[in-house]
């Protein structure tokens, strides 16, 4: 609760900062300070929390340790993100304070999503998460692609909101409550079709937000068109937040009915893995490849939702952090380059060995090579799916797709290490940039060697 209040207050403070401080750099500094403070608030709230979940405001929120820990981690990722791409955000447009305020509001949405107990809060959380994203996607007003991305995202996002609401309504019609713990479904031993229809609608709407196939089609265009610093945020922390909401709904709310929705979600997962990995192979732009890769990674995270067990919860949090950190790092490197195609990476190892080195670590993590966080994350979600028992075929399929993913991820490594070229840099790589990238790389490695660190906090 403290974090929710703090995030909104800080957002407002940032807006006023924009009014009073004209220099972009100072705004950036204030934003980073406030995010650090927000992280502090999160830690404070986490340390004060007991083991029992706490409910607030007539069961609107139900805050448990998992949610608080997730919030803390995601705030930490956001802080890392803000420090890494601070300068690039300042380059996007004139309204730097507003961008950071929107990021604060998005965090507020994530806090709601990790602790909602009423469908109303889910709905509001998703909207608080989405509307700032539409704005951030369109914030580079000099660039037509950015506006196009924004409009596409807005139209499709609103469409999915309609579907989400239809799902919530049907579910309410079937159960008479908005409270996800209070759902009672069984009518004469038969799942009421209304409820099942509601579940499917919700699956589609949330699947849209996490870019699961066939609702994924907005993802490449929006991620490609949006200003790169904001793509980095939208593809990582935001996505992780929605995943936790997705998981909470399907395991707390509908967990008992898993045999009714599991097959459909398994099909969605398979389609997501297939489309994401296969389409990524042919991309020429690394930014767009990362968009498809985020679809592919979403396919893996869907395993955690499918599994409905304790390992899945742990796997989800490890995955969220490992994926977010590696992707943020990769985007930070990408932002340093002028050319976002694979060719833009040619010969990077010669010119910027450190940049190339950390990029290699991030790529290894995304591809799931052992000793990086990505491997542990994939391992845990697949393990969770196996514990579930019926998903062997899907796990094997996922592993096959992971092998395909090596192809497009390693193209980056080949470009950096095995090709000649002279990559042009956008801006100078300063000492602090290097330090931050090294820290990011170390986090990825720590997650691979001792994922315990993340799990222990739950």
């Amino acid at each position, binding site marked *: 609760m403290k974090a*929710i209040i703090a995030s*909104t207050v800080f*957002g*407002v403070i940032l*807006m006023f900062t924009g009014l009073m401080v004209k220099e972009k750099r100072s705004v950036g500094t204030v934003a980073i300070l406030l995010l650090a403070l927000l992280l502090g608030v999160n830690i404070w709230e986490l340390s004060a929390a007991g083991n029992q979940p706490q409910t*607030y*405001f*007539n069961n*609107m*929120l139900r805050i448990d340790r998992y949610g608080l820990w997730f919030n803390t981690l995601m705030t930490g990722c956001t802080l890392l993100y803000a420090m890494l791409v601070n300068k690039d955000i300042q380059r996007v*447009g*004139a*309204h730097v304070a*507003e*961008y950071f*305020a*929107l990021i604060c*509001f998005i965090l*507020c*949405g994530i806090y*709601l999503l990790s602790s909602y107990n*009423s469908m*109303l*809060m889910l709905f*509001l959380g998703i*909207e*608080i998460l989405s*509307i*700032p994203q*539409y*704005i951030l996607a*369109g*914030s580079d*007003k*000099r*660039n*037509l*692609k950015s506006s196009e991305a*924004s409009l596409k995202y807005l139209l499709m996002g609103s469409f999915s909101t309609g579907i989400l609401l239809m799902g919530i309504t049907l579910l309410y019609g*079937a159960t008479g409550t908005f409270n996800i713990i209070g759902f009672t479904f069984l*009518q004469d031993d038969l799942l*009421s*079709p*209304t409820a*099942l*229809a509601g579940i499917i609608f919700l699956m589609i709407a949330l699947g849209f937000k996490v870019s699961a196939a066939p609702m994924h089609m907005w993802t490449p265009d929006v991620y490609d068109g949006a200003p790169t610093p904001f793509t980095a945020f939208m593809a990582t922390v935001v996505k992780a937040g929605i995943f936790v909401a997705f998981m909470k709904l399907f395991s707390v709310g509908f967990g008992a009915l898993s045999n009714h929705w599991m097959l459909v979600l398994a099909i969605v997962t398979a389609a997501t893995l297939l489309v994401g990995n296969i389409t990524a192979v042919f991309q020429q732009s690394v930014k767009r490849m990362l968009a498809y890769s985020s679809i592919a990674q979403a396919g893996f995270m869907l395993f955690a939702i499918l599994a409905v067990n304790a390992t899945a919860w742990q796997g989800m949090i490890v995955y969220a952090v490992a994926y977010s950190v590696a992707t943020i790092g990769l985007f930070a490197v990408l932002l340093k380059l002028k050319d976002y195609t694979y060719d833009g990476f040619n010969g990077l190892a010669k010119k910027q060995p450190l940049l190339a080195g950390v990029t290699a670590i991030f790529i290894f993590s995304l591809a799931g090579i052992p000793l990086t966080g990505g491997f542990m994350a994939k391992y845990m979600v697949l393990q969770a799916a196996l514990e579930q028992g019926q998903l062997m075929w899907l796990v094997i399929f996922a592993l096959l797709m992971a092998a395909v993913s090596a192809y497009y991820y390693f193209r980056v490594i080949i470009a950096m290490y095995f090709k000649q070229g002279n990559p042009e840099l956008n801006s100078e790589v300063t000492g602090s940039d290097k330090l931050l990238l090294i820290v990011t790389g170390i986090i990825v490695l720590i997650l691979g060697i001792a994922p315990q660190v993340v799990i222990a906090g739950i």
Partner: protein
Amino acid sequence: MSTYEILFWFLTVMALSCALGVILSRNPVNSVLFLIATFFAISGHYVLMNAQFLAIVNIIVYAGAIMVLFLFVIMLMNLNADTEPQKNRLVQFAGVISGGALFLVVLAALRTSSVNMLEQSPTDIGLIKNLGKTLFTQFVLPFEISSVLFLSAMIGAVVIGKKEEAVSEVKQ
């Protein structure tokens, strides 16, 4: 047929036909007007279901504010039927077919769902006093939180709507 039923069917037919009008009329202004009519029909349904407060809000907020905003934007852009581009027939047909298929599938799925009768007796849950109480006790958190939503929408309108000088890519 009771008055209630007559009203129900009248409003239903009105809502559906006006909704079809929205998507079929070529002139955007007509579409807006049809949509407003649809909202009125839906408000009528609200009244039938004793949700008077929502009926009024629907007319004020939707028909009154939101739709006027739409109308305003359309007028501003000076869009009329002649300049309105149409999708080709095949795409329109595909749209109708897929939308219709979805409708039929969901309809078939929900056909067997339990039949509950709506109570005819008037209740007072839809009255403003009752709703106000619920809103400010049970739903006070969402009420407060929605302010964040508005705040970000406001920022959005400012950030996005404000005119900025150079545009790198002009119309092709």
